[in-house]
């Protein structure tokens, strides 16, 4: 197994793209290639392209996205695959690129994730995402991701004493972070009092799926993100020092959410994180910054616990203390998270790694976590039935050499 690093990042402004899917992916791709100092055209050196999109076929009526992307970027005859793994498609593509390079099959890979969702109505987008639920036991009932998240949130509040205000505090924090991220979709900070305690709060911030309100749910966004990965042994060919992918863990859980033994557990998050820590030889205490999959704000709290960053049932207390803000003990979702940066499904897992790479390079501007060395991303597919955790580090492989024996 060879060590793998990130040498280029690219990211479109999330929001409404106004261009076709492959063109949108191309903007992110060329930004990542420019960042890596790779020429477009002859001698580009890209061996393999992975393109992550969940809905290209269903909402944009375009399959074979990776093949189209390779052609328009003039990367032929590079190898190319499109990757679909629900909202975890992005992290899956990063994982596959890691495996391709670690195996020695290629030296340099381009990973692009993106989704063009604003071309359909809000309901059509919600319905398209719901097609990954269990067909008979969930989807046919009209259940959607917000519905499952609402039921999960109610249980979590009941069991651990999480309040609606705690949820809103996560949202406000992530919107504050997004103000420092120029590529975030929403550049506006809601007022905590106005969306929770004000007499008009329920008008400003109505229920989507009780107890979740509008401000507890991510927006529907277009956008793309891209990475250039290389073998660490080839790292000196690139202008910027590679950020190393130290560990990747993935785990699955039951398809039907009702079947889970403990309804408030996100077992796949826990198992994916454990695998990633073991592979990296890094403990949760050593993580300096994290991007967690807050499609619904309760997920940021629950994932922060399942990933071992805070004790079980205490994630919301960390939010109250301000631990998860930039400047706090362990900043979470410095990019604005899915909540404020936006959640173009196939882009999200790649976007999380773009943000963490910028953090570890010290390029995160007003949201920079000072001295960040180790970072974790959790990309959550389905309602937690397919989860990928990724750990990045500025540390060298020599310190963690044995970690690689895990895979």
């Amino acid at each position, binding site marked *: 197994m060879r060590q793998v690093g990130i040498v280029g990042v690219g990211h479109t402004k999330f929001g409404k793209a106004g261009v076709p899917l492959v063109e949108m992916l191309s903007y992110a791709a060329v930004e990542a290639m420019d960042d890596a100092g790779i020429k477009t055209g002859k001698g580009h050196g890209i061996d393999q392209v992975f393109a992550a999109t969940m809905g290209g076929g269903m909402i944009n009526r375009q399959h074979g996205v990776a093949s189209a992307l390779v052609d328009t970027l003039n990367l032929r005859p590079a190898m190319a695959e499109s990757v679909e793994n629900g909202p975890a498609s992005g992290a899956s593509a990063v994982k596959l690129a890691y495996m391709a390079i670690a195996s020695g099959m290629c030296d340099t890979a381009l990973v692009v994730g993106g989704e063009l969702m604003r071309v359909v109505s*809000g*309901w059509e987008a*919600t*319905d398209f995402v719901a097609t990954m639920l*269990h067909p*008979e*036991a*969930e989807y*046919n*009932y*009209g*259940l*959607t991701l*917000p*519905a499952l998240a*609402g*039921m*999960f949130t*109610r*249980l979590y509040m*009941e069991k651990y004493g999480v309040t609606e205000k705690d949820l809103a505090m996560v949202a406000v924090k992530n919107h504050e972070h997004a103000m420092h991220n120029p590529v975030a979709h929403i550049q506006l900070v809601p007022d905590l009092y106005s969306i929770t305690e004000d007499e008009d709060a329920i008008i400003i911030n*109505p*229920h*989507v*799926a*009780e*107890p*979740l309100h509008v401000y507890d749910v991510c927006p529907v966004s277009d956008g793309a993100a891209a990475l250039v990965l290389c073998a660490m042994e080839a790292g000196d060919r690139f202008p910027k020092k590679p950020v190393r992918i130290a560990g990747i863990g993935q785990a699955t859980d039951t398809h*039907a*959410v*009702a*079947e889970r033994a403990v*309804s408030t557990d996100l077992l796949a998050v826990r198992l994916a994180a454990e695998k990633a820590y073991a592979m990296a030889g890094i403990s949760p205490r050593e993580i300096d910054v994290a991007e967690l999959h807050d499609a619904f704000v309760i997920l940021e709290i629950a994932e922060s616990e399942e990933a071992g960053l805070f004790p079980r049932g205490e994630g919301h207390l960390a939010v109250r203390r301000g631990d998860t803000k930039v400047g706090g003990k362990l900043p979470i979702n410095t990019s604005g998270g899915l909540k404020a940066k936006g959640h173009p499904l196939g882009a999200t897992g790649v976007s999380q790694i773009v943000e963490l790479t910028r953090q570890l390079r010290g390029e995160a501007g007003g949201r920079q976590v000072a001295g960040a060395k180790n970072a974790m991303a959790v990309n959550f597919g389905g309602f937690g039935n397919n989860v990928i955790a990724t750990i990045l580090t500025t540390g060298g492989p020599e310190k963690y050499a044995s970690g690689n024996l895990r895979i």
Partner: protein
Amino acid sequence: MQAEIYAYKCTACGHLHHPAHFVCVKCGGREFEQVALTGEGTLVTYTRVYNLPEGYMKPFIAFGIVEFPNGLRAAGQMGTDELQLGMRVRAEVGVVKEGVGKDFYGFIFQKAE
């Protein structure tokens, strides 16, 4: 037309499943028999969902997860507006979605008397 919802009982070890699985989660067996999943249960959690597709003439649809006495849990629609964690509900089966030329049947949980 399916007016009954089933649990799937592994013929080797008796473990009950809902929905159907191809392989038993307990013993790895591959043969199941259908058993009617009916009766009363307990409401584990619920939500009212307000973002509904166009054409719905109601402000929200309520969903819940119910635990049956045999330990199985299933999601369904709620047929009552009186919703409380832990309440007793009765599993009825009705049309949960109208399809083109085919309606979908599923649980509609009612408040138990």
